[in-house]
């Protein structure tokens, strides 16, 4: 594990795909396969993915300009939104019409672009909430503490262990609302680990995080892989993507426009097009917002 803060050179996973890298290329061992997934908002087509496979046991980055449909695609995959059409499966099981909480129980845990720490719960309670199959979460059993006390202790122990790893253990009795923006991102990620997921989907885990915390966040993402989990994450910063991703999928205007190894994909004309195209039109307003937001969280972090 690399939680001592010193930058390490991550070991890249290779040989993930079959044949030439191209949008929708077949993977040796896909964990997610999506087909014809389409979502429109009124006249706007937010997501229109013909075919995509996410490789198992690797770190895949989903990149693309603002408004490309990355978050919407995340929402569709995890049951937080319903597509107009299409089918997709996780670990060979179809996820169409599966509600979000069942998707999570199957081992696909996500985080949100706008952090969702549960403010008026303590950091420790946030963590405990992440644990699966809790006896005491049933109303009738909840009144009989002897039924769940032992499991609760085990959960607490595990929570404290993960919090220590994320350097949040000193804050465990504090309300999550008192954490800085970056610490909330860490907490959300730590909480996701409480359920031992097989696939972790992170929506912009670095957005607005104090640079002092980014290295530690990167290390934690690499840790997930070394522990056998698959990671799919959305990120804007190309340096980070290049640094940790084994595979990159590029989205623009709802479609997958390129796929490949992080070094090769950057030189793909379709990718340059997607980004330049986006910068030429109205999306600049969006990214301005994001800078303001990032600045806010930065100031937050400094306090």
């Amino acid at each position, binding site marked *: 594990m690399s939680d001592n803060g010193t930058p390490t050179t991550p070991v890249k996973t290779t040989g993930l795909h079959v044949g030439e890298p191209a949008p929708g290329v077949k993977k040796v061992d896909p964990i997610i396969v999506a087909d014809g997934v389409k979502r429109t908002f009124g006249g706007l087509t937010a997501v229109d993915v013909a075919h995509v496979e996410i490789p198992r046991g690797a770190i895949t980055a989903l990149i693309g300009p603002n408004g490309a449909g990355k978050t919407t695609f995340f929402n569709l995959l995890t049951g937080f939104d319903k597509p107009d059409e299409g089918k997709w499966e996780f670990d060979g099981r179809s996820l169409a019409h599966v509600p979000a909480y069942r998707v999570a129980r199957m081992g696909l*845990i996500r985080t949100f672009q706008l952090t969702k720490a549960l403010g008026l719960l303590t950091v420790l309670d946030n963590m*405990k909430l992440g644990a699966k199959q809790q006896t005491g979460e049933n*109303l009738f059993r909840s009144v009989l503490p002897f039924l769940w006390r032992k499991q609760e202790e085990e959960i607490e122990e595990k929570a404290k262990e993960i919090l220590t790893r994320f350097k949040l253990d000193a804050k465990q009795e504090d309300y999550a609302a008192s954490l800085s923006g970056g610490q909330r991102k860490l907490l959300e990620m730590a909480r996701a680990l409480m359920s031992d997921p097989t696939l972790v989907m992170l929506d912009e885990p670095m957005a607005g995080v104090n640079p002092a915390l980014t290295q530690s966040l990167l290390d934690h993402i690499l840790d997930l892989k070394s522990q056998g989990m698959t990671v799919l994450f959305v990120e804007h910063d190309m340096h980070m993507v290049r640094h940790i991703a084994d595979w990159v999928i590029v989205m623009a205007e709802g479609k997958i426009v390129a796929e490949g190894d992080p070094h090769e994909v950057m030189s793909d004309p379709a990718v340059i097009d997607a980004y330049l195209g986006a910068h030429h039109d109205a999306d600049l307003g969006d990214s301005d917002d994001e800078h303001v937001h990032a600045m806010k969280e930065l100031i937050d972090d400094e306090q």
Partner: protein
Amino acid sequence: MIDWIQIFSNAAQELISPTTAAYALAALGLAIHFGYTGLLNFGQAGFMALGAYGFAISTLTFGFPVWASVLVGIGASVVFALILGIPTLRLRADYLAIVTIAAAEILRLIFTTNTFDDVTGSASGLQGYKGGIAALNPIPPGTYGFGPFTYNAYDWWIRILGWTVVILAALFTWSIMRSPWGRVIKGIREDEDAVRALGKNVYSYKMQSLILGGVFGTLAGMIFILPRAVVPANYQTSLTFFIYAILLLGGAATILGPIVGSMIFWVLLSFFSGFMARAVEAGWFPFMTQVQAGQLRFILVGIAIMLLVVFRPQGIFGNKKELSFVR
């Protein structure tokens, strides 16, 4: 001159009155809904009406024993909660608020209309359903107590009964809210999508909360009718708002808050009304009639609650630290 002893003694009686117990229990139900789960139920008066009418109609029309009448009331409120919750709990929080406020009014109008007069007694309501409860009274006939707290056997019995239910409900709520179930519930209040993403069936938890708080409201409705008759005009939307006032007074996400809040509310209300009535009588306010004085007490209680909310917005038992984070 003004009889201060009488005013204070009347106010003190409200501390343990069955009405205070009923409001405390209804507010505890709202604490589960609003304080812990974040559900905006504006139809608690409807749940109370179902308790009152469910009990009274079962006893009077069908001749059910006490336990069966209680079960009918509870069953009716579970069905009511399901009808309200199934279409709305998947939607944004405000939909539940709109639907509950309307549904409670519909119930009240159904109980008021002449169409079902045989069963509901329409606008004049129902009475004569207390025999079963009185028959269960273990206290021998007589007068007991001291000072302002001197009551006959039935009045003591309904006080003991009412407050026992309140205490049991408070202990039950306390124990579930410190369990993992309560943790999920509080998580839903903070951000239901986050809780969903952790694999919890949020819809089911919200439904459980709605039913549980509603059943508390129903039991409160039964306690409420023990010292009086069932009158449909008692179940107006203002009843729900008074219960919200009590909840905010005591602290929304607390167990003791609703109980102490109800005591303060009723003691203040009784004090103000007693004082105003006698002050008008004594000619202190020559510009005011008795009727106007009766209205003024609600204004004074409103001002008192406003002051409390301004100077102690977390309520009496609420945690100040929590409030500093409210968005």
